[in-house]
């Protein structure tokens, strides 16, 4: 329950930053989807359970603070996330493959939910991927709290 509370807090913070601070600083064309980046960072860390919860909560908060039907982003996030999970189980669990999946997912979401411009969707997707990698690299300090997995060991294994 405490973790859910922290997830709600973090996602509110991310949505507010995404909609106001980053949107003003970088403009909408170069604004990464922080909610998606944060949720999908758990996919990179093999913690799908927390990733799903984060995307459900984050999508809901995002819709509440924008002009979108409530639940739309959550639903789309969860479907894309699960497709990525299935793909990793069947094809590869390597990080580069997950990066590719995240990039495709972010492109699809941006293209259908934000802009019909494929070029703009690619830019936003690339920035979302970059942000997700940053979240992933922060795992020792922040994300491990949610996942409770031995990420240091996992990453050591990956690097070797």
């Amino acid at each position: 329950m405490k973790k859910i509370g922290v997830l709600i807090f973090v996602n509110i913070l991310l949505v507010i930053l995404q909609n106001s601070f980053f949107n003003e600083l970088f403009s909408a064309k170069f604004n990464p989807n922080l909610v998606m980046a944060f949720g999908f960072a758990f996919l990179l860390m093999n913690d799908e359970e927390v990733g799903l919860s984060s995307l459900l909560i984050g999508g809901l908060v995002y819709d509440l603070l924008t002009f979108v039907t409530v639940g739309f982003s959550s639903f789309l996030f969860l479907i894309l996330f699960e497709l990525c999970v299935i793909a990793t189980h069947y094809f590869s669990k390597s990080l580069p493959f997950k990066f590719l999946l995240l990039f495709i997912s972010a492109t699809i979401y941006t293209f259908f939910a934000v802009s019909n411009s494929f070029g703009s969707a690619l830019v936003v997707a690339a920035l979302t991927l970059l942000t997700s990698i940053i979240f992933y690299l922060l795992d020792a300090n922040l994300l491990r709290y949610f996942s409770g997995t031995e990420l240091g060991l996992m990453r050591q294994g990956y690097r070797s």
Partner: protein
Amino acid sequence: MLVKKLFVAFVILALGFLGVFNPFRTVVQYIFTPVEFGLKNTASSIKDTGNFFIALKGLRDQNISLIKENQNLKSIILSLKQADDENKILRTQLNLKNRNTFDKKLLLANVMGNAKDLTGGSVIIDKGTRQGVKAGSNVILANYLVGIVKDTQSERSLVSLITSPDISATVRDIDVAQHTEGLAVGQYGTSIQMTRILPNEVINVGDTIVTSGKDGIFDANLLLGKVVKVVSVPAEPLKSAYIETQIDLANLDKVFVIIE
């Protein structure tokens, strides 16, 4: 677990379509709107500071040209004052109501960019239905038309800017005697195109374009901008012109909503 979460998301989406969450959304927006607009202002200050240092080199040249422009404007103001005095005397003589009196109520609103619009053709303002904003309300800054309210929620509204392709307004040229009319359409957040100008009608670069009010959507005599280019293709029956707005739509901070 996934099926459970997907089901929850689907139920939320279904209820969202029915508008069940609207009261909750109102509360959430009531709490977070000031925070969002505060953060936007902070980002805006950071951006301005950065831009200031970047533009430092060109500021001297800009200053010199502004001094010259200021001198020209002072002379224009002087002639306008004389015309104004003359106008007042004539109005008194004719017993006419002062046309400059804006008899509609204006509502001041803060502006925040719309993260869901990558074209920059819309913005979000911090006033909604609770403050009397309705879909279709005109949004202005000074005498300039900024856009129109497309969607409203309790605490905020979505405004389509005049440079958005969603917007078209009937306009006229006030600098030519025949008051050439046309239809102004936004060009994906960059400029405005004035279309449907008859070949025999006159329109020149530098002319001032205002709304005519004939569309019933926009009030009349709201400034759009100046003509920067006139396009006349011999094969096409109608002319078109490109209008540049005199306000910086990309860096809007505050606007006024005309409340009917």
